[in-house]
């Protein structure tokens, strides 16, 4: 990399990455044991939160010159934010990595235009046959599972190199969506449903089940029109402007009048929705609106618990446990919104199954948006050891609360040849099944 290029990046860091936020880190290391990439890199400080923050600061201060090794350290970050609740100093790592990615992206896209460099985050993926194969395998799986429909909708396709775009374009259109009916009867709680782009395309069934469960528990559900993808995927990869556009559209789409909660069934969406205010620090009106919006945001597990699902499940007839259920935390649901007990509470209450806690359930599954496409090696290492834990606790059903984790768990089940004995499910579908079983017989 030329000196001029490195200098551009340094300037970009000065503009985008907040110095005070960097200085919040006192380098104690409390975050190290929480970080999956640190653990799975055999304790490489370069792949730790403390190391990455030190790198951000060193680039910003001009102590080191930007190169591929620094870029890799940032690229390998899952963005799972497990380092945040672990940090006593309150370092806002999620914001820092987004700012970093924005800083890098803004220089890269400029230079791409100038055609001076064509070195993207994706280059190394296509330079290496073996990596390429893993990626293609995953992509094929994703196509089968329907991710390609989403890809177009989110627009993160633009992140992919041209030939991948071609590939995506040749895929069929998603089926016409059916909107679930709002309940007719008088309801005590009124919630607005955030459908989520992934959930809305690949997991329509889950969305329908979500609404049915809410209705059953006495909720009126409205589905505001014109809602957009939350913007998380764009935000996490540093495209803050586009994330902001989506956020603004959602703030406009959701009228808060008379609404008790804005519910979502994707941990990743929920976390991003709950931090919309960060996107509008320079716009007081939108900032206030975002805060009001975020206050009403709730994940489906927490809402179900509030609405009494645990009692509802307790009323069901006792049956012999025929399956072993375990839960894989959605990292953003846990690390950003602090929700970890509710999904477990629900699973413990369900009849006919035995809940077991899987060691390391709190560690990111390696899905992390499109991470598994970009960093197949690390993702595969993480997923591999996750599946070892699944086998160790002999789980037959792996429950998740986020589409990304769900897909990743499905990949894991396939890859380990466990599809005969194990399945991955969204908590909503699982509970829906339990309740319908008992009603429908």
């Amino acid at each position: 990399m030329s000196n001029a290029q490195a200098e551009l990046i340094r300037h970009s860091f000065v503009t985008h990455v907040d110095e005070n936020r960097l200085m919040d880190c006192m380098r104690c290391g409390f975050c190290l044991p929480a970080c999956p990439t640190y653990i799975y890199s055999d304790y490489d400080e370069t792949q730790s939160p403390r190391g990455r923050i030190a790198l951000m600061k060193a680039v910003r201060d001009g102590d080191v010159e930007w190169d591929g090794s620094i870029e890799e350290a940032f690229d390998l970050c899952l963005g799972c934010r497990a380092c945040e609740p672990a940090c006593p100093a309150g370092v806002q790592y999620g914001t820092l990595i987004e700012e970093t990615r924005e800083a890098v992206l803004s220089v890269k896209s400029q230079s791409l235009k100038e055609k001076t460099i064509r070195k993207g985050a994706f280059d190394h993926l296509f330079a290496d046959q073996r990596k390429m194969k893993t990626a293609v395998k995953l992509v094929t799986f994703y196509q089968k599972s329907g991710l390609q429909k989403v890809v177009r909708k989110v627009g993160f396709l633009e992140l992919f190199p041209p030939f991948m775009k071609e590939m995506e374009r040749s895929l069929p259109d998603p089926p016409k969506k059916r909107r679930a009916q709002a309940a007719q009867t008088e309801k005590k709680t009124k919630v607005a449903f955030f459908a989520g782009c992934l959930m809305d395309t690949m997991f329509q069934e889950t969305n329908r089940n979500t609404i049915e469960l809410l209705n059953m528990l006495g909720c009126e559900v409205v589905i505001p029109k014109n809602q957009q993808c939350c913007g998380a995927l764009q935000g996490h990869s540093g495209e803050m402007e586009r994330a902001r556009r989506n956020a603004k559209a959602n703030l406009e789409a959701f009228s808060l009048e008379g609404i008790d909660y804005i519910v979502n069934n994707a941990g990743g969406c929920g976390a991003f929705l709950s931090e919309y205010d960060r996107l509008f620090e320079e716009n007081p009106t939108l900032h206030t609106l975002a805060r009001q919006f975020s206050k009403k945001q709730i994940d489906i597990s927490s809402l179900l618990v509030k609405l009494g699902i645990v009692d509802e499940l307790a009323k069901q007839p006792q049956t012999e446990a025929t399956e072993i259920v375990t839960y894989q935390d959605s990292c953003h649901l846990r690390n950003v919104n602090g929700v970890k007990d509710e999904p477990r509470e629900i699973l413990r209450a369900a009849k006919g199954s035995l809940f077991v806690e899987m060691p390391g359930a709190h560690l990111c599954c390696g899905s992390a948006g499109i991470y598994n496409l970009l960093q197949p090696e690390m993702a595969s290492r993480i997923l591999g050891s996750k599946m070892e834990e699944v086998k160790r606790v002999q789980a037959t059903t792996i429950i998740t609360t986020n589409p990304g984790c769900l897909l990743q768990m499905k990949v894991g089940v396939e890859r380990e040849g466990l599809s005969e004995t194990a399945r991955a499910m969204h908590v909503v579908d699982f509970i829906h099944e339990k309740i319908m079983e008992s009603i429908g017989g």
Partner: protein
Amino acid sequence: MDVQVKERLIAITGSAHARTSTAQKLAYSYDATANFQALPDIVLSPSSVEEIQEIVKVCAEYGVPIVSRGSGTNLAAGTTPTSGGVVVLFNRMNRILELDEENLTLTVQPGVITQAINELVAEKGLFYPPDPSSMSISTIGGNVSENSGGLRGLKYGVTRDYVKALKIVLPSGELLTTGGKLAKDVAGYDLTSLFVGSEGTLGIIVEITLGLIPAPETKKTLLVFYDTLEKAAQTVSSIIAAKIVPATLEFMDKGTIEAVEEFMKIGLPTNCEAMLLIEQDGDPAVVDKDMEHVHKLCMEHGATSTQMAQTVEEAAQLSIARRVALSALARKRPTTILEDATVPRSEIAKMVKAVQEIALKYDLLICTFGHAGDGNLHPTILTDVRDDAEMARVEMAFAEIFDHAIKLGGTITGEHGVGEMKAPYLEWKIGKAGMDTMKSIKLAIDPLNIMNPGKIFAKSTKKRVVVQHE
């Protein structure tokens, strides 16, 4: 570093375990000490004693500095590669080698995380007491090299008290074995003790045998709140004077309580001036009796309220609250610089008062917490390295706290070590004869000065400005 030397070093571990990229060198350029940073030339992860011996031999041949590094949590700039050279890691030497239940010893490699040791022996009804606040991150090799203390130091002592035997690769590459699984051993100089706390300046510790004790039957945890710092400090002295030795006797001031509560959200009152965390463990009857007595003493010394942990989980939360104090304080200002001054237990109230006065005098924000029962306080200066004027005052305050601690019969560091940070002040504590003795030991064992150079021994001693306190 010469390319040829680098290649020879890489050949020892294999390139998969040698780090040389910009990012990797930067990631091993710092530890938990503010304002110290230096890049190494190469970072190596050896997998065996033999590989370490070879690394040392190559380094000795070319005079290349070696910095042993555990998890880099030390607070004295002990692992910053001040003179460049090789950083040696123990991430591949992190196995538990043997639990000997007949001799009550545990033999481990240096890279094992302290907490893993605590957990492993607890499963067997045994106890390894040293528990530095950083135990979930720190390595046992780091603990031994810093002679770390912890929350249970008052009753159970520090790391040194549990190190039975060591294997050390000397600067010549030779392997030295000291001590043994023995209750008694007076065969010559106590070399084990010499290497404990030697901060990587005498050799590389490659194997450690620890002594264990039976786990205490039960434990009780009490929180006590005060409206002045002095009352809390006086309580500490009174407990010791009453011949009670609690397992834990920790102190936090208002600023620390605020920061910790902000992180933990466990309902600590932020309107008090000081808090003590007191634990006793052992035989249930004795624990009850001691805790009753302690409670009475707290009330007699003006505690405003007390709170006994009702469950094991609650007690665990409270000790976590104390463990995160330092990092939580970092919330307050951009730069966190902490002190480790230690005084005789009887002088703790005087020291607390002096720190308050020094903070006022230099117009600085200083929050204090620490192992009050050990007389080991951590006055923490919350500041901003970007403010030159303030940093000049920080340096003066820093020196004055040292000076004051020494006058009270104390030391400049109780448990964090000298490193590079406190090297200029070491002579204040040990005098010229002390410096000469230590230097001749260093020179005898490491004549080429390749083991962690620039640590413990500074180029020059800070001039001691004697401050008058009434």
